[in-house]
């Protein structure tokens, strides 16, 4: 009697263990499957655009102006415009972002001001891109009277890019061991000398990664440039920084939705060029970061 009871209990607990393990296995399979479901389309999306767009890409496509109501020819003015804007974004954003990152990593104390600065950065990161566009229109285009111009667009994109670059640059600076600073100070260096000669040289790869990531974001943005710089179609290239320019993301929007009878191949080709431009920047940033991690010897 006694023995039967304990055997029962044992089989019961055994059964429960089995059931738990079964649930575990099912859950693992489901989780793995869902993760695959999320990741696989990323590859498919890129492949899809690549396969459909690669036929349009030619030397002429990259270097010619659009012709015949944009249904023929190339995308050179838009490509050039995006490169110009990306460059301008860098000029606006890099000094300001690195300065802010140095401040946060090296100077900021644990006080109310620092908390406000961090809150401001979090908020900047969350402001919708179209609101940046409105701000650029209100401040740079109208108030400062730059007109719809490369300057206005670059300033808008530069400000939008700040939070990304600040946070990656700050991380890179914080990753430099505190010992370096202590030793530098003990040798009689001032704070700025320490930052300039000990901290920044070690942080620079990380900072560059952040800058490139930020610029790649800016290169692909459409909403902030809608009212600040982007032109539907321009027969001539911009002559000065106070001119409008065509830009690749907006050009894609225009030829996809605003121009009837647009050959599909040109649409896919434009999407592919934009995608490649942005992804190659991301790739460069990733390579720099991986190299940096491997080379770091502290």
């Amino acid at each position, binding site marked *: 009697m006694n023995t039967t009871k304990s055997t029962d209990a044992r089989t019961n607990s055994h059964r429960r263990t089995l059931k738990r393990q079964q*649930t575990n296995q099912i859950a693992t399979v489901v989780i793995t499957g869902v993760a695959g479901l999320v990741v696989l389309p990323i590859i498919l999306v890129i492949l899809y655009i690549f396969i459909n767009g690669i036929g349009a890409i030619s030397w002429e496509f990259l270097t010619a102006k659009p012709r015949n109501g944009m249904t023929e020819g190339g995308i050179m003015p838009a490509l050039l415009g995006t490169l110009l804007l990306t460059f301008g974004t860098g000029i606006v954003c890099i000094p300001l972002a690195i300065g802010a990152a140095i*401040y946060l990593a090296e100077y900021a104390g644990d006080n109310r001001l620092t908390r406000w600065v961090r809150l401001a950065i979090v908020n900047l990161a969350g402001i919708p891109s179209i609101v940046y*566009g409105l701000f650029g229109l209100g401040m740079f285009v109208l108030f400062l009277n730059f007109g719809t111009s490369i300057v206005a667009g670059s300033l808008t994109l530069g400000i939008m890019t*700040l939070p990304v670059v600040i946070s990656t640059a700050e991380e890179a600076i914080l990753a430099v061991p505190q010992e370096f600073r202590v030793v530098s100070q003990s040798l009689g260096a001032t704070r700025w000398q320490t930052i300039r000669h000990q901290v920044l040289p070690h942080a620079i790869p990380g900072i560059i990664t952040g800058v490139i990531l930020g610029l790649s974001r800016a290169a692909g943005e459409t909403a902030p440039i809608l009212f600040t710089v982007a032109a539907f179609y321009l027969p001539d290239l911009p002559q000065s920084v106070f001119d409008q320019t065509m830009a690749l993301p907006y050009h894609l929007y225009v030829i996809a939705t605003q121009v009837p009878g647009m050959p599909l191949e040109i649409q896919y080709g434009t999407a592919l060029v934009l995608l490649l431009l942005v992804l190659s920047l991301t790739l460069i940033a990733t390579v720099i970061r991986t190299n940096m991690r491997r080379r770091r010897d502290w």
Partner: protein
Amino acid sequence: MSALPVTLRKRLRTLVRDVPFDAVRNIQWSLLDWREILIESLIRLAGISSIIIVGMIFLFLLREGIPTFLDIPLRQLFESRWYPNEGLYGMWPLIVGSLIVTVGAIIVALPLGLITAIYLGEIAPEWQREILKPLIEVLAGIPSIVLGFLGWIALAPLIQKLGAPTGLTALTGSLILAYMALPTIISISEDALYAVPKEYRDGALAIGATRWQTIRHVVLPAARSGLVMAVMLGIGRAIGETMAVMMVTGNAAFVPTFGADMALQPVRTMTATIAAEMGEVAQGSMHYHVLFGIGIMLFLITAAINSLAGRLVGTSGNRRRGGQL
């Protein structure tokens, strides 16, 4: 420093470690000359520039948008007719449109994102993580206009086959948005899972829990506040998205009739309205001011979400430093 031989550097490091923590943290610096004073003030200025910029953004939105709220009775602003040409600025359809698309996106993206984060953080072997994380970063890097283009040209025809009159519907917008919000949700959820101390998992496994039980009953509850933050920032990301949404939601400024096929009706979001109409309005007209007014609302909504999420970061940070569950 990097020129020092490794052994010496290691010895230096142990030496420094023995110094009391405060001495290492608060180094006493001396200033040398005016150039450094200048550089340091520039750095401090750059530091507080973010505050100034947020302030300026809000000021300029107010400057152009305030007539909306002064000249139009509040009740009219929330009516359901958006006919700017006739002077009717009822924002209700736009608010509902943004709401439907955002909620739909989160419903799709949250489970997918959370489960992917669980896979990356708890199940995937190291080599898979090395591949998958950059891949998700790639998704975050794809310009929204490219995803919008895909939605317009590839996804919309599929949705049309589901029985919608056109493929440009709230559902199409939600799906594209969900995909765009995924990287945000995944990376923040993963951080939250990562912040759960390893001892918790070890403890659960040691008393015989399976891996799923550990995840379900130990890791997820401990990561709760971080997961809430992931949802909030995902919402913030989705509600502010413009171009992709404008391309695929059909842009009809009507309140969709409530029902089963609500998702298959075209809608128009707040962001898309600004993007689509700002190019055509006369500067200084009421329509122009109202579009800035919508911008003010978007600014306030995202600011509220992000400030709240920022506060959550603070609390989960405390927990990481060895607080209690």
